[in-house]
């Protein structure tokens, strides 16, 4: 962390200094002691201002953290927690510089002495990958607005931005069996492990209805069991598309992430097999974040046409190829020859 402390005159401060100089010149010219007194008072205010503004900035440390996950193209909130030792921090402006973004500003009216205060900024990460906070500038015009004193702090902090997510239409999902059909499930017997709760559909067996939950929600709820849904879905991509432009590739990765998220939302175990890595089926938030982080940082152009992931032999879940799904959405998808 490197600190620099630039100082800048405000417009009011410039007038003030010029006026003080004029009074000083008049005092020296006339020898009028009252002018010397007034000059002394004016200079005194400058010294007090410098001392207080320095005290207000001295000893500020910051900790930045996103609130929730960051998704490309989605508005996100980042919280800056400012800690202050000694003198309170008054009217602190925080100017944060982000890689690939315009500087963002926020205002902290008061940081108590030996206490903390927080401020939030809203930003939209432009792309997946890393969001880097390059530097931070804390400035104040406290107490009199004569000068703007600031501290520059080199930060170099970064957070992972997940690919852009969007809602996939139900038709696409149904076509691949990812969305349950509106028809009722008529299967022999019930499983032993509960999988999910869902709304009652016409034709569901009465014994499947979870009466307690239905009473609570004031509508009929059906409990589906594990064995009926199987062990989840594995989305599989044997190689990255060959002819995609970077923009199309980003869109494709975003599609994969949205696909994964759709399945996660439906409480089914999910996995992902792509050329670089294989994520086994599992239904957990941590698993979702692992896949998202991988998708956020993966560079498909490095490994295009190479390194096909191998499916485990003992895999008995449904394996869904991502390519047809993508093609079904009206995009052309050419496998590498």
């Amino acid at each position: 962390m490197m600190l620099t402390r630039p100082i800048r005159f405000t417009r009011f401060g410039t007038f003030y200094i010029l006026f003080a100089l004029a009074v000083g010149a008049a005092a020296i010219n006339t020898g009028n002691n009252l002018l010397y007194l007034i000059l002394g008072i004016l200079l005194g205010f400058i010294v007090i201002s410098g001392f207080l503004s320095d005290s207000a900035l001295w000893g500020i440390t910051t900790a930045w953290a996103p609130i929730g996950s960051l998704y490309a193209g989605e508005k996100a909130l980042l919280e800056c927690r400012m800690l202050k030792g000694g003198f309170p921090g008054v009217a602190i402006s925080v100017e944060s510089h982000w890689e690939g973004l315009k500087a963002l500003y926020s205002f902290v009216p008061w940081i108590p002495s030996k206490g903390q205060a927080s401020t939030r900024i809203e930003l939209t990460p432009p792309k997946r990958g890393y969001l880097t906070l390059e530097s931070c500038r804390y400035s104040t015009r406290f107490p009199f607005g004569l000068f703007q004193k600031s501290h520059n702090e080199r930060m170099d902090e970064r957070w992972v931005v997940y690919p852009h997510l969007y809602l996939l239409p139900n038709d696409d999902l149904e076509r691949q069996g990812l969305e349950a059909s509106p028809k009722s499930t008529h299967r022999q017997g019930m499983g032993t492990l509960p999988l999910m709760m869902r709304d009652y559909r016409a034709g569901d067996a009465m014994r499947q209805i979870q009466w307690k939950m239905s009473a609570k929600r004031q509508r009929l709820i059906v409990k589906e069991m594990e064995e009926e849904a199987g062990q989840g879905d594995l989305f599989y991509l044997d190689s990255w598309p060959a002819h995609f432009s970077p923009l199309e590739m980003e869109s494709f990765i975003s599609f994969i992430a949205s696909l994964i998220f759709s399945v996660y939302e439906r409480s089914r175990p999910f996995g992902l097999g792509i050329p670089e890595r294989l994520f086994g089926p599992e239904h957990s938030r941590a698993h979702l974040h692992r896949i998202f982080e991988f998708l956020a940082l993966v560079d498909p152009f490095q490994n295009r046409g190479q390194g096909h992931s191998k499916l485990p032999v003992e895999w008995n879940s449904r394996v869904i190829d991502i390519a047809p799904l993508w093609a079904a959405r009206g995009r052309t998808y050419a496998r590498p020859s």
Partner: protein
Amino acid sequence: MPAHLRPLRITVQVAAALGLLSITLSGEISPPWCAISWTAWVFGLAADRFPQFQARLRSLETAAVAGMVGTLLIDFFAFHNSIFIAVTHFLLLFQIVKLAGEKKRKDCLQIFVFSFFQVLAACTLSVDPWHAAVLLALIPTATAALFWNQMAREYEMAKNDLDAAVSRNYRRMAALMSAAALPLNLVLTVAVFVIIPRLTLNVPVAGFSGNQMGYIDQINLSQKGNLAENAAVVLWLSFPRPAERPTWNGYLRGDVLSDFNGHSWTPSQGRHSRILLPDLNNIFSMGELRRSVRTLRQSITLVDISAGTLFTIGRPLRVVAPLQALQEFEGGSLHWLAARRQPLHYDVLSEPFSIDEVRAEYLALPPVPLDRIRALTNKVAGRGPPLERARRIEQFLQKNYRYSTHLGDRIPDNPVESFLFERRQGPCGHFASAMALMLRLQNIPCRLVAGYLKGEWNEPAQAVVIRERDAHAWVEAYVAGQGWISFDPSPRLVGAEAAGGTSLFHRLNQYSDYFGLLWDRFVIHYDLYSQIRAFESLKGGSGRLGAQLASWWSKMRLQFHHTRQPSREPAETGGAATARRPWKEIGAFLILSLVSGLVLTRRRLAAYDAGLRFYTRFLEGMARIGCSKHPWETGQEFAARLAQTRPDQADQAHRITNQYYRARFSNKKPVLEE
């Protein structure tokens, strides 16, 4: 009204009051202006209840400013007011409009800036110690006003409003800053005031004239109306030898006036003068010291320097003053030559009588009808030696005429005749003129002297304070064989200083005057010479301190040297003298240190009971295993963090923290077992 603007408005209202107070105290602005300004100030307190009026005023603001500029020009060019008065009128007008109108942040800032300029203008118009009080009050007010202005600006930029908690914090901060800014700024101001060199370059700036004349070296009898009493302090007179004070006859001479044209007295047209230059010690010599004549020493601080005259008791022989040159006129009146803008302090050695020669103009008669006056003079003076005749005339005027500051309702053609036969009352100038004319009609050479009479003894300052209202005129007549003798025909209180009384108000007034003297001496009169003297005394003081320290240190070294080598001393000195060993001092020092240490430790131990010490040990233990408490964390927050990072320690941490809280904050302290 937005919350962030409320404190700013209150503060600038106070600043405006200070500006107006300063202007009012200067006494240079006419009462109607002051009355209107104060009315606008009072209206400003409730102006927000008249939004329509404020909106109307806002729309007319540009036209109002144009009108004010016009007023400024008319003031300066048509009414011939000084630039300072004109600018002050302009500032007052602007302030009136701003106080009555809508007060947004910028308006508030403008009101504050104009208030500051008003104080500045008032300081320029008159130099009173009151302005020191106003300036002192302005420092915390300005601190608060600038602070609230900046905070309001921040909130304007953030498009937000103050919440209650932040507002409370800001109020505390403003109060703290205002309280701290006063002493800090005073120290800095004094430092700047003392250190910055008094160069007094006097580069002329067009449009800025010098001081206005207050004292004039002539007595004009052709006046009407009333003489207003002016209580402004002119000078301070002190006697370096207090025993000489009773010998002072109460007269302080200024200019000598010998030409009379029937209407006014002026210094002689062809009067002789000589230039006096000081010696290396700034001493001016006017004449030889005569052993036979009693001399009088006096020390004078001349506050009002507009006359350019050095007032002295009797005829000055030696003057010590920080001046380049002096001009001595007939009768021993002294003037300085170079322009001066600061009060003057000088010391005088004088003799009571003037011995200069008699010239023809001291018998010159004015070109006005004198028959009635001659007849009266002959009747009053009678026959006898000149001194007796002069005494008779003096007593005749003192007994038969009344002192009055009323000059009459019309300007008479022959003022002396009018005074003697018609009005029979008037100020001292009329009495002195009548006596001088009557003496000249009796062929006794005489002249008028303008100066001051008596004044008032100021106990705190141990000096006589002389005010404008003490200005006086009397007569000096030449009596062969006795020289120039003073006569005062005016039936004023003579022979005793003005009775002051012992009331609290009088005492306060004396202290106020004394404060004024200190202000003049140490602030207004502070110049390059004062700076040099101050630094020299500082240097001398530090030198003395250094010498004392060095002497003390060498003594101590010697004593310890003797203490370390006890065996050799008796042999070297032949056993005649043994060095004193400072065992007592060392013992006393050690005992004192021990007692102080015990007292301090006891206090410290009393402050830390068992619970607190245990908690401190707990924190140290936690720090050793890598969980140190942050300075901004409370105990509970630390315990909560610990519960997350070290779940195994959670219960213990909460228990110890609770005990610590009880030990520290609760009335029910934990028992030792807990």
